[in-house]
């Protein structure tokens, strides 16, 4: 966090409107020319439970949550269940204030709703305020809200107070409220806003603000987008008009966005009985000639294992998305982790051959989802977009031009009826759908209903016309052809795309390697380390299968040592690198985090100093260090 940033944390109860208020706040500041990045923390609860959203605001591009934050708006949990201290979950009502103090930086601001919260319930509150030089504003937001509207409008009052204290032009927020709110509630909300704003101006000395929100300007038009939005839009722009799914956090976001938008695009969404059916429906629709997808989170994806293998052996194009959360089993449903990596790479019986991308940003999520569709339909292979609750839910500003691309509804390697007339058939007239010797391993498919295209698709090993075969020669020919597609895709990725990113000075001595959603945070940590005088560069890997062996080898060869950063407990990603490269275990150590919260840049800075610079032990158990092989 720099001195010129506002990192605003709005905390309350689950169901208090924290998410929508913070989204509007972030969008308003984006419209004002600033760069924004949000981080959500929420419990797996229906109503109640402490939740917060952090909005990081800067004049310069931001790609991660910050280290700590400097402005707390504590609203109080209006759905709190048990106020007694001995309760399993503690006194929940006070949590929006008490739970957020540890990460508030020195000199930070606290605004709390004195209508709901009493800081005397927090041990040492006054001492901590003094020690950290926090500026505390106790404001009865509830009463302000009640006077002109309803209690729920205390969120608006809190935003107004934020503007008054951090010197944010009220019109920035009010014009967004006018766009976002229906007329009926707009008027009382604007009155609540003005009242709260004026009250702070009158009662507090805000001439010299404690925190000054930055001001800025964008080079081009921006949109506020989540990873889930970007995945859904990537699918739509590739002509995906069929989705099947079953609700599961956090994959539900992509499913919902698709389901709400597909009808107006003449598409079909099916909410079905379980994830086995969901994956099977996507296969059935794709087989019949629609561009189709499904997806889930860890538990549901487990159920998709068998259909996934069916898509591999029948060479049915299939796009799945997997939104990881902390496991095993139900784990922590609303908390991010990256520990489904091996599961997604290898699940289902037999030798897996599939494409797996793990995008690092919302823009990458859009591009890589599009590429996942292109590869799936051209090479008749499953493509999986692997992300997590962090990337799916966090909002950031992305140039609108990222999405200004032509749609592509091409079905890939499919023959028309005219082409089928020229294609090889067996003596009974069946189309040789699975020919042995084809260019790049791809044997073009026909679709049910086409004249001259009939064949049998089967999960058994099969001969060119599709019939079941256990002939050794045929088996080897078909396996080799299917596996060859992965090599061809690797070559295509090497030639065409730059999904993996390198950040920092090419000649740096030390490396940080990460994958997927941690990329932005690791890059920020590298910037901090380089400012401190170290020589560090970052490799963010998105192509998990087929693995970019050459690029990772080159990166590792170019540094003395590397720290692999991932949200797993068993260093799965480092294991993947060692497996794919056949070594380098003596050059890589690991920094792991699996406590439910994504890395902050400072976690990585500290881990790096411990690991590679022989610094002190890690300060606490938030992260875990695993040394190199042989140490």
């Amino acid at each position, binding site marked *: 966090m720099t001195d010129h940033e506002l990192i605003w944390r709005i905390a309350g109860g689950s169901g208090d409107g924290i998410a929508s208020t913070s989204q509007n706040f972030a969008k308003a500041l984006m419209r004002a020319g600033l760069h924004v990045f949000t981080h959500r923390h929420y419990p797996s609860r229906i109503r109640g439970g402490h939740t917060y959203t952090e909005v990081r605001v800067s004049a310069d591009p931001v790609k991660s949550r910050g280290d700590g934050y400097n402005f707390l708006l504590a609203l109080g949990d209006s759905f709190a269940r048990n106020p007694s201290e001995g309760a399993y979950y503690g006194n929940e009502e006070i949590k929006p204030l008490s739970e957020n103090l540890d990460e508030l930086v020195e000199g930070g601001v606290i605004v709390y709703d004195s209508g709901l919260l009493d800081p005397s319930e927090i041990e040492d509150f006054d001492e901590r305020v003094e020690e950290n030089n926090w500026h505390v504003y106790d404001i009865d937001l509830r009463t302000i809200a009640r006077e002109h509207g309803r209690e729920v409008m205390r969120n608006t009052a809190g935003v107004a107070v934020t503007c008054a204290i951090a010197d944010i032009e009220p019109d920035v927020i009010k014009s967004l409220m006018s766009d976002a709110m229906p007329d009926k509630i707009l008027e009382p909300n604007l009155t609540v806003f003005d009242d709260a704003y004026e009250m702070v101006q009158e009662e507090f000395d805000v001439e010299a603000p404690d925190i000054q929100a930055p001001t800025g300007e964008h080079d081009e038009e921006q949109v506020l987008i989540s990873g889930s939005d970007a995945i859904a839009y990537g699918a739509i722009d590739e002509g995906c008009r069929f989705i099947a799914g079953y609700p599961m956090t956090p994959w539900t976001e992509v499913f919902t966005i698709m389901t709400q938008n597909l009808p107006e695009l003449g598409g079909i969404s099916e909410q079905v009985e379980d994830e086995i059916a969901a994956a099977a*429906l996507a296969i059935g629709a794709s087989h019949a000639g629609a561009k189709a997808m499904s997806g889930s989170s860890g538990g549901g994806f487990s159920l998709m294992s068998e259909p996934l293998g069916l898509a591999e052996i029948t060479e049915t194009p299939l796009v799945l998305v997997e939104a990881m959360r902390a496991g095993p089993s139900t784990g922590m449903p609303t908390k991010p982790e990256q520990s489904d990596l091996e599961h997604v790479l290898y699940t289902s019986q037999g030798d897996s051959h599939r494409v797996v991308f793990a995008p690092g940003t919302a823009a990458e999520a859009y591009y890589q989802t599009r590429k996942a569709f292109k590869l799936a339909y051209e090479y008749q292979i499953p493509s999986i977009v692997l992300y997590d609750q962090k990337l799916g839910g966090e909002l950031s500003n992305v140039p609108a031009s990222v999405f200004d691309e032509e749609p592509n509804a091409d079905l890939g390697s499919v023959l028309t009826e005219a082409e089928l007339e020229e294609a090889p058939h067996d003596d009974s007239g069946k189309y040789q759908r699975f020919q042995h010797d084809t260019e790049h391993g791809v044997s073009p498919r026909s679709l*049910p209903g086409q004249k001259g295209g009939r064949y*049998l698709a089967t999960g058994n090993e099969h001969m060119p016309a599709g019939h079941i075969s256990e002939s050794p020669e045929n088996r080897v020919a078909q396996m080799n052809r299917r596996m060859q597609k992965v090599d061809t895709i690797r070559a295509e990725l090497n030639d065409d795309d730059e999904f993996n990113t390198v950040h920092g000075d090419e000649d740096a001595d030390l490396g940080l390697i990460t994958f997927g959603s941690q990329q932005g945070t690791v890059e920020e940590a590298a910037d901090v380390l380089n400012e401190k005088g170290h020589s560090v560069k970052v490799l963010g890997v998105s192509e998990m299968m087929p693995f970019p062996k050459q690029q990772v080898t080159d990166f590792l060869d170019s540094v003395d040592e590397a720290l692999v950063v991932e949200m797993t407990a068993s260093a799965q990603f480092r294991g993947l690198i060692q497996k794919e490269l056949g070594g380098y275990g003596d050059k890589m150590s690991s920094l792991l985090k699996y406590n439910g919260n994504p890395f902050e840049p400072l976690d990585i800075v500290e881990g790096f100093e411990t690991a590679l610079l022989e610094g002190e032990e890690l300060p606490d158990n938030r992260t875990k260090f695993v040394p190199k092989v042989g140490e």
Partner: protein
Amino acid sequence: MSAFSAIGEETEEDQNEFTPGLEPQPTWCPGCGDFGVLKALKGAAAELGLSPEEMMVTTGIGCSGKLNSYFNSYGFHTIHGRSLPIARAAKLANPGLTVVAAGGDGDGYGIGGNHFMHTARENHDITYIVFNNEIFGLTKGQTSPTSPMGHKSKTQPHGSAKTPLRPLSMSLNAGASYVARTAAVNPNQAKDIIVEAIQHDGFSHVDFLTQCPTWNKDARQYVPYIDINESEDYEFDKTNRSEASEMMFETENALHEGTVLTGRYYVDSDRPSYQQEKKRIGEMPEEPLAERYFDDSYEWERSFDNFLDKHK
């Protein structure tokens, strides 16, 4: 012009069209009831004037799963229990296809039971033929969901302690709009029922009794059989849900007492299919989705024009 010209194509009524000209020939055991299903399906398809390439037959795993190896059409031999979700989606993507799903009693009433229940509930416009031999045949004779109580097998050496599942009652309660039972030993009725099932606009469930002479030697050959719609001993209205329910209950009990009852049990011709319902609420396109990908004049929508404004 359709990219799928086999759909709706004029054809001559010739059931040999549905016999593959080459191998594979059926590998079912001599005397197996599965031959009866194959014959009835060929006869029904020919009678309906269907062409092989407008039909898609999906199957599960088991002896029954080989049906589409021996039936000349588009086929998808899927995985155990999953023929229905694949069939449903193909029909949604290209409603012009005639979609028939098939599998055994273990496949449909056991491992795939959840799909059976929900496909019936949703009333998808497909036909589902369950080869019911009251046994697991391909894996050599284990007790299945429809095996009678007390049935002994290598996996139930002391006889099954479980009452058999009631396939007809389950289908009705789940929401199927056409429910029938036929038997391999009754080829004319079987063909007629499959013709009706394919013609029916909604989910048609045919519980097809297929004797297994190899692994279920103790079981009936399902003869003699009685057609409840023809017999004067059984009076009920197949369009009346509660009368159908009673008739099914009686039929399921009778089977284990040695009386084989078959026929049409429930027919609801008024209920719209799922596809019709989905169109009614505006969640399914009027034109087949699969055709759109071949329409060069179609202007594909994109997120930049349709959705980005709300993010600005």
